[in-house]
C-alpha cells in the first residue's frame, strides 16, 4: 500500500502544470494547477484536508467542522446536508471536496453544472483514509506532507494488525447510542477497528449500518466487553447503567470501556488514536480472563 501511495503522488506531480487524481466514484478530477481555494463539504473532510497539510488553502467549510481548532474559524457555507449554493459560488473555489453519501446529490449536481471542480470522497477502509489524504495533498500541492501523514497512519494501523491478528477473540458489544440503544454492523468503520483489535462484534451480521437493538438481545448475547462511543457526545455515564445486569460477563469483569466518539467516528488520521485505545482495552479484557 505504501508503494502504491508513493506512485500515486509521483504520478500526480509528474506533469508540473496539471494535477489529476481519481476520486472515490472513480471519476478523474483534474486541476490546471494546485488548488488554492478549497471548500470542504463535511466536518470529516475538513479534518482530512488539514491532515493533508492543505488547511491554509481552505476558504470555507460546513457547520460543525470542529477539528483542528483552526477549522472552527473557517467561514461557513451551511450544513453538510443543505448548503448555500450562492455562498459557495461567490467564494470562487477552485476545488470542492464533497461527501458523496452525506451531501444532497441535487445540490452537488447543480455545482457540477456550474463548472466547479468536485472531488467525491467516501472512504470505507483504512487504506481509503490514507489514500484520501494523499489525493487531497496532490490536488492542493502538499503531496509530500500528505504522504508522510498517510504513511504514519497506515504503519500505525499495520502495527496494531500485526499485534492482534492472532490474539484470542473478544466478544464485543459496541454501543453508539443509549436512548434508543443503537449499535453498528460489520460494515461500520467502528466495527472494522474492533476487528483490527481482535474483537468480534456481537451484532455484526445485522443488515442496517447502525441498527437499533433490544436490551434483552445484548444480555442474551453476553458480551465479554462493552464499548461505548460513536455518535453521541461524551457520555461515559452510559456505561454505569449496565452494572445492574450483573449476569453479563463484561459487567462481572468490569470490562466497560469508553472511547471519545470523535476518535472513532470520523474517517481521519485520528482514528489511529481511537484504534490504539480500543486495542488496549480489549487486551485488558483478555488479561481479566
Amino acid at each position, binding site marked *: 500500500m505504501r508503494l502504491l501511495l508513493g506512485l500515486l503522488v509521483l504520478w500526480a506531480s509528474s506533469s508540473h502544470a496539471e494535477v489529476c487524481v481519481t476520486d472515490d466514484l472513480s471519476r478523474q478530477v483534474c486541476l490546471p494547477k494546485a488548488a488554492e481555494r478549497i471548500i470542504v463539504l463535511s466536518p470529516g473532510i475538513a479534518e482530512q484536508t488539514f491532515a493533508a497539510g492543505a488547511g491554509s488553502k481552505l476558504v470555507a467549510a460546513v457547520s460543525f467542522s470542529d477539528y483542528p481548532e483552526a477549522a472552527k474559524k473557517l467561514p461557513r457555507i451551511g450544513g453538510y*446536508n443543505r448548503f448555500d449554493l450562492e455562498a459557495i459560488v461567490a467564494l470562487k473555489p477552485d476545488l470542492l471536496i464533497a461527501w458523496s453519501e452525506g451531501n444532497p446529490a441535487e445540490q452537488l449536481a447543480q455545482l457540477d453544472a456550474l463548472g466547479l471542480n468536485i472531488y467525491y470522497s467516501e472512504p470505507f477502509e483504512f487504506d481509503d483514509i490514507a489514500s484520501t489524504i494523499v489525493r487531497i495533498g496532490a490536488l492542493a500541492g502538499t503531496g509530500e506532507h500528505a504522504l508522510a501523514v498517510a504513511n504514519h497512519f497506515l504503519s500505525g494501523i499495520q502495527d496494531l494488525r500485526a499485534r492482534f491478528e492472532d490474539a484470542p477473540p473478544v466478544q464485543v458489544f459496541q454501543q453508539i447510542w443509549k*436512548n434508543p440503544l443503537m449499535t453498528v454492523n460489520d460494515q461500520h468503520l467502528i466495527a472494522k477497528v474492533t476487528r483490527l483489535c481482535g474483537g468480534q462484534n456481537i451484532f455484526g451480521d445485522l443488515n442496517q449500518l447502525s441498527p437499533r437493538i433490544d*436490551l434483552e438481545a445484548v444480555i442474551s448475547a453476553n458480551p465479554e466487553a462493552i464499548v461505548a462511543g460513536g455518535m453521541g457526545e461524551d457520555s461515559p455515564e452510559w456505561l454505569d447503567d449496565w452494572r445492574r445486569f450483573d449476569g453479563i460477563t463484561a459487567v462481572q469483569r468490569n470490562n466497560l470501556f469508553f472511547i471519545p466518539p470523535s476518535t472513532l467516528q470520523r474517517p481521519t488520521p485520528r482514528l489511529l488514536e481511537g484504534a490504539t485505545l480500543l486495542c488496549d482495552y480489549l487486551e485488558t479484557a483478555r488479561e481479566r480472563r
Partner: protein
Amino acid sequence: MSGANFQASAIRPFRPLPLIILAGIALASLLIAVRVGSVEIALLDLWQVLCGNGNSLHQTLVFELRLPRALAAFATGGLLAVAGSLMQVLLRNPLADPYILGLSSGSAVGALFAMLMGLTGLIVSGAAFAGALISATLVFTLANGGGSWTPTRLLLTGVIISSGWSALVTFMLAISPSDKLPGMLFWLMGDLAYSGSPWPALLVLISTCLILTPLGRSLNVLARGPMQAATLGIQVKQMEWGIYIFASLLTAFAVTTAGSIGFVGLIIPHMLRLVLGNDQRLILPASALAGGSLLTLADTLARSIIAPQQLPAGVITAMLGVPTFLYLLHRSR
C-alpha cells in the same frame, strides 16, 4: 360519534360485563408482554419466575426489563385513550385526540430543546412535561381571551399553536448536528424503550379512573351539548375547564413516558363507542383498559417482530388500530 349514539346512552343501566372482558384482555396482554422477547422463556419457567424462583437471567429479563416496560406501555396507552375520550366529549368533535391541542408538539419542543443543549435522562423528561404544560396553558389562555369560550375557538387555537410548535421542531431538527439526530427522531416517533419507571404514569392512570367514574353521568349529559347540560343543572364552564386541565395532565404524563404515540387516543374511544355505545361511565374505564392493552401488545410486537432490531411502537399501533377501526366502522353501518 353520531347524534344517534349520543341519544341512546345515559338512561341505560350500567353494565359491568364489557369491563370484565376488557380486564381479562388487559391481563392477557401483560402476560404476553412478559412472555415474549429475544430470549425464549418457556411457560413453566415463566411461572417459576413469577413465583419468585427460576434462574437469574430470566428474573432479570422479566422483572427488570419486560414487566416495567409492559406496565409503562399499559399506563401510557390507558392515559392516551382516556385523554382522547375526554377531548372528544369536550370538543364535541370526532377528530379530537389528546394531541389536537398541541400537547405533543409542545412537549416535543421541550424535549428536543433539552437534547439540543446536550442534556439527557430525567431532564429531557422534565423538559417534555414542562413543554406540554406550557402549551396547554398557552392554548387555554388564548382561547379564553375574549371571554367567550367555544369548542371551535379552543380547537382552532390548539391546532394553530400545534403547527407553530411543529415548525419549531422542524427548525431544531434542521440546525442540530447529525450526531444528535437519531435520539431526537426516535423521541418524535414515540417509543417505550426509554420509559424509565412505570409507576408515575400507572398511579396517574389508576387515580384517574377512580376520580372520573363518579363523574360519568355528568359527562354523559355534557356530551349531548352544553345547552342541555346547563338546563339539567350542570355547571358547564367549570366542568369544561376541569376536563381540559385533566386531559392535558394525562397527556403530559403519557408523552413524558413514551414520546408521542399516535392513534391510541383517537381510535380506542371511537372503537369502544361503536361497540358499547356512548355511555361515559363505561367508556372511560373501558378506554383505560383497551388503550393499555393495545399499546402493550403493540409494544411487544415492536420489540420482537424483527428482533434484535426494534421498531417504534407507534408504527404497530397504527397497523393494528387502523384495520380494526375500519372494520368496526364498516360493520356499524
